[in-house]
Every structure is written in C-alpha cells, then in structure tokens.
C-alpha cells in the first residue's frame, strides 16, 4: 500500500456532528416537500424508514470494514484487496457522487438565497461565495470542519426547535393523519430509494482513518443515522402539521415558508433574517465537508499522497457543474430524482460489492486476515 494521506484526528463526537450536518442540511431546501410529495401525510414516516434502511446499510458496511482490521477507509481496503483498480473504482465513483452532491447543493442554496433575500444579486456571485467558504473549510481539513460542526450543531438544533415553537399557533396535529399516507407499498418502495437522501452517512467510511478510535465507526454511524433521521423526520412532521397535504406539495422552500409565518406580535416577526444566516452557514459547512470527502476519495483512488491540490480543481468543476441545470426546478429534479433516488445504487451497492469482493479476495495484501 502507498503512503497514506494524513490529516489530523477527530473524536467520535466531532465525527458525529460532521455526519449530522452533512446529512441533515438538506432539510433547509426542498427535502420536506419531496417527502410529502412521495408519501403525503406519512412523509415523516418515510424519512424514518429511509433512515433505518440507510443506517442498516452503513452499519453493514462499517462492520465489513471493521472485519478487515486496522483503521482503513473503504477505498484503502478496496485497493489493498482488489488492487489499484479496486481503489480507483471506489475512489473516483464515490468522489464524483459527492461532487455532484456539492454542485447541486450549492445551486439549490444559491437559488434559495436569491429567492428569499438577494433577488438582484447575480447567481454566480452568490454561488462563488458559497464555494469560496466551502473551499476554505475543506482546505483547513478534517479537524477544522469537524470542530466547527461540533460547535454549530447544538445551535442549529436549537434554532430548528425554536422555529417549531414559534409556528405553534399554526400547528394542527390532526393533519398528520391518515398515518400511512400514500400507503404501505409506497412507504416501502420510496423508503428504499429514499436511502439516497442519507448517502452522506457514507462519509464515515471515508474519514475512518482520522478517528482517534476507529472502533467507534459503528457507534458514530448509528448515532448519526438515528439523530439525523429523527431531526429530519421531526421537521417534516412539523411541516405537515403547518402546511397540510396537499398544500405542503405547493411550497418551494418549506422551512423558509414556515418561518415566514412567525408573527407573535409587532416585535416578533420577520425572524427569517436570523434563520437564513444559520441556513447559509449550515449549507456552506455541508459543502465544505462533502467537498473535502470528494477530494480525499479522488486522491486515494488515484493513489496520490496529498489531496489538497485537488480541492481547487474540484471546486472549479463543482462550480461549473452547479450551473448546468437550466433552472432551479431542474437542479431540484436532478438532486431529488436522479442523484438521490438512483444514486443510492452506486452509493451503497458499490461499496457493498467492493467490500464483499475484498472479503473473498483472500491472500491479496493480507496477513493474518488483516489489511496491512
């Protein structure tokens, strides 16, 4: 095996915060609407089912990785067991997947900002600012990203909970019924494809070497799945109680529209200004994390000793890709219906196949059943 890429160490809590931000930042975009569109009043249940399935898949992958021993990442194991080709396939494919995530996230956050507060600012300027901050974060590395995430997660969580409290006057619990929404069959089928919305959990397999205790991989993955899943389901449930079906399907940015309803007297209104600040920071942090992972994966896949030089090229590429969709609607469709609902096949199945093959490929780069 070639020289490993080194980049600081983080503990389990910081990794957990990192995964939570990367996974759940999408609730600020169109995610709640997509869930309602798929499962009607059971949108929140769909989130939980998808989270459960995604968590199970990530758990299996983490266990397989742990079975290889050491503190190796997915691509490192693939390379060690299946040769450079294995590492290349794992690294490049997942890197491109995450790059597409960064590009589409950037485009959607930019569109949200322009729609909500900056209608006259050119989209190129807004997107460029998002990418510059994300690039800076990714360049600083895993420790900076994870510590910022650890610092921000409680505030983001409190902000979302406070938002729920502020829109309480509009909340009607009976709107969560009928409980099964569009039906059990829809919940199962869309629950499987919905695992794509939790693909960011795969980051744990990529950053595993940087964990102080690689043995925590499984615990971190499970905790992140549970916490992100419950938080996202909570937001969707609240959304349905405020914007009942079928109105819930008409709103572009659900959380923004919910917060715009806040009116608790003349002095407690228009609070979205504060929320947009939190959302943008969360969006930029998520972009930084995923951009970092994309560069790391590509560097490992190509067998490079460093990943930082790739960050500039990947940022430029993602910036360009973010303008490929003709409109906000197309960016949303590509994210929800292509990257997520189809990308899960690549995101989960490819690592499963690679790790399965790696387990079977005895004698290649192993000693005593462990990767060296």
């Amino acid at each position: 095996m070639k020289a490993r890429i080194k980049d600081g160490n983080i503990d389990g809590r910081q990794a957990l915060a990192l995964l939570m931000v990367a996974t759940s930042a999408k609730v600020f975009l169109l995610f709640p609407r997509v869930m309602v569109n798929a499962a009607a009043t059971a949108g929140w249940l769909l989130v939980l089912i998808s989270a459960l399935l995604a968590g199970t898949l990530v758990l299996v992958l983490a266990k397989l990785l742990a079975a290889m021993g050491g503190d190796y990442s997915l691509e490192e194991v693939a390379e060690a067991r299946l040769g450079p080709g294995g590492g290349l396939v794992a690294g490049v494919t997942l890197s491109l997947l995450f790059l597409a995530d960064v590009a589409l996230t950037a485009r959607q956050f930019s569109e949200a900002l322009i729609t909500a507060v900056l209608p006259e600012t050119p989209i190129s300027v807004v997107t460029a600012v998002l990418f510059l901050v994300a690039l800076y974060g990714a360049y600083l590395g895993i420790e900076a990203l994870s510590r910022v995430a650890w610092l921000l997660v409680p505030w983001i969580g409190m902000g979302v909970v406070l938002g729920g409290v502020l829109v309480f006057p509009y909340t009607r619990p009976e709107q969560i019924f009928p409980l099964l929404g569009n039906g059990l069959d829809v919940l199962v089928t869309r629950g499987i494809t919905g695992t794509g919305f939790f693909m960011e959990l795969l980051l744990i397999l990529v950053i595993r070497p940087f964990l102080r205790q690689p043995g925590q991989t499984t615990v971190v993955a499970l905790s992140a799945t549970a916490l992100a899943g419950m938080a996202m389901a909570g937001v969707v449930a609240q959304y349905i109680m405020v914007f009942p079906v079928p109105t819930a399907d008409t709103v572009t940015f659900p959380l923004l529209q919910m917060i715009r309803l806040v009116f608790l007297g003349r002095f407690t209104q228009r609070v979205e200004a504060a929320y947009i600040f939190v959302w943008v920071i969360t969006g930029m942090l998520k972009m930084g994390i995923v951009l970092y992972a994309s560069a790391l994966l590509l560097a490992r896949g190509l067998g490079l000793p460093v990943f930082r030089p790739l960050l500039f090229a990947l940022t430029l590429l993602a910036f360009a890709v973010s303008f490929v969709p003709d409109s906000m609607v197309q960016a949303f469709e590509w994210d929800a219906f292509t990257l997520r609902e189809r990308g899960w096949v690549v995101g989960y199945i490819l690592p499963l196949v690679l790790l399965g093959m790696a387990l079977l490929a005895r004698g290649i780069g192993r000693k005593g059943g462990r990767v060296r």
Partner: protein
Amino acid sequence: MEELAWVLVLGLDQRPRQRVEVTALIAIPRRLQQDDGSGEKPFFVASAVGDTIFDAMNLLNCYVSRRINLTHAKAVVMGMDTAEQGIQVYLDGLSRDREARRIMSVLISHGPAGEFIRAIAPRIEANPGKYMEELIANRQFTGFYEPSLVHDILVAIASPAEEPVAIRAALSEGPGRPGQETAADVGAGEVPRRGGDPVELIGGVVFSGDRAVGTLTGDEMRAVAMVRGTFRRASVTVPQPGEEEGWLALALSQRSPPRISVDLGSDPPRLRTRISLEADILMADDGFNYSGQETIVRLQQQAARVLKERIEAVVRRAQEEFQADIFGFGRHVQPHFLTWPQWQDYRWLQRFPEAVIEVEVNLEIRRIGLLFREHRPRGAETR
C-alpha cells in the same frame, strides 16, 4: 428603505379580459414619524389596472416615485364580485412573491376593494397599517370573524377537509338587517351606527373552493368559531328566560376545544359536537337575583339552549345553502382513514351536506361580576 413605497393595504378587483385593478394604500413615512401640521393623511391611495397584479404594480410606478413594495402589507382586500369569480389565482401570485407574506389577512369587501381602501380613514391610529392590524385583531374579544390569513385561505382552498371563510368587510351603510335576532346578527355594512371610521369588519364570507358562495353575520361567525374551537372571549347576548322581553349579556369564553366524535359506520355519517363554554354574567335586563344557584342554573340552561340553536342554524345553512364545511369537521373525519387515497376517495366535502351533525352545548356560569344582586328601586318587588 428610502427608495421604497410601502404598501400597507392591497386591493384587488377583477376587471374585464382577465385584468386586475390593484389599489394600494401607501404609507408616507415622513408623516407617520412626525405630524407636520399640514393636517394631511400619512398615506395616499393609488390604483392601476394591469394584466396581472405585478403588471399593475409596475404601472403604479409610472406615477409613484418610489418602488412599490409589499413587505409591510397587512391585508389584501378583494371585492365580492372578484371573490365570486375565484381568488386562488391572486393568492397564489402573492404567496409566490417574496415580498408579500402568507400572514396578510384576506378581507372580502361588499363593494369594490378600491372603494373600500379609499374610504379608510383611521382616527385613533395615525398608521393605517397598525389600524388595520388592530381592527383585525379585535376578533380576540368580539369573535365577529375568524382569522383569515392568506395561509389559512390557501390551505382551506386545497383541503379535502374544510372550506375557507374570510373576513367580511364593507363601508358603513347602517340600515341593520331585516329579520335580525340580535344586534350582532348583522354583516359588514349593516351595523346600525353613527360616526367613527367608515369601514367596518363583521361577519364572514363563505367559499366553496376558491369562489365566494355566501355571507354570514357576526353572531353566526361566533357560532362557527365555537365549533372550530377558535372562539376566545366575547360579550354575547341571548334572550332572557321567561316570558318578558329582555336580554341576558354574558362574557363568554371557550373552556376547552370542542370534542367531536365521528361515526362513519352509518350512512350518512354522524358527527357529535360537544362544545364547552364558560360565562360570567355582565347584565340582565329584568334584574335577576343571581345570588341563588337555582337562578344561575336557569340562566345557563337558557343560554346553552339559545347558543345550541344558533349553532345548529349555522350548521344547517352551511349544509343546505352553502354546502361548504366551514367548520373543519373534515379534519376530525380525516384521522379515521389509514391512507391518503382512502381519505380522498371518501370525498368528505361532497358528503358534508348529508351528514347528521348533533350539537351539544355545555355552558357553566362561573362568576357574577362585582355586583352580588341588583339594585332595587325603593318599593320595587323582588322578582
């Protein structure tokens, strides 16, 4: 800030060829901050006809120097003629816009919205936005209309569980209403009065989908609110018990949300509504001696019976005349289904007119105010 013209009240009237007349009540910030002694109003009204709301707003800027902005708009007023043609297209347009908010109140005026807005002349408040905000908020202690935000109306328009009801507005004409039972049994424009601001809000406009199909009076809207569970507190008058004419005034409040039980096993469906109210006695025309619990019970039975009849009458109107579930009974039926397609296929709004709806009113008089018994003129007999 200094480049914008803040619209505080927006009026929409449909014009021929699918055009719309937009009337904007625009604040003059300089006069709002400080009375310049000129005696002129701190706002002006401007209107323009356009192909769409936004087209008309652009045309307004042909003669309003600052850019028209809806960020501070408190209410959108639409004429009854416009409401009868459908309001969804206008509310959709406004809710898509980042400036306008879904928390604007929707008012349906008896005449053209433009005329209503031009007549706005607040006396106590200098700021017409605050005036409109406070006038609308008065429902908290009058109960004469329900909250009717753009959000509420849009949700109800699309909902398979309820129909919208908006605030009824008009310019004062003051004739009263033929056949009215109580003083509050009138709609906007019918309140017998003299003086004050020319505009008035009382009653509701009932919609079926996005089209207005009828109107309700202030008293009827209180009954609607009691069923919806949104009634807060108001002074309500009922005829006093006994044979002599007279009124019993109660400060009424809703003790708890109404309990609505649903039986879908029968055809038509049966709903039982239990409404719990609390009251304080404000006044009784013939000076009952409230001190005895027996009298209190008599009064509360009388009030409960009258309110039950009022609610049943409004339910009947909603079922027979409007065929519109303005009470949101459907929201209580909805949880009885397991899936959304099953609930949609049930077509509640089409079944509502046939549904058997039983009303039970439980009213408890708790307090009698600061007067333990009435003052009796010398020589008067105790009743």
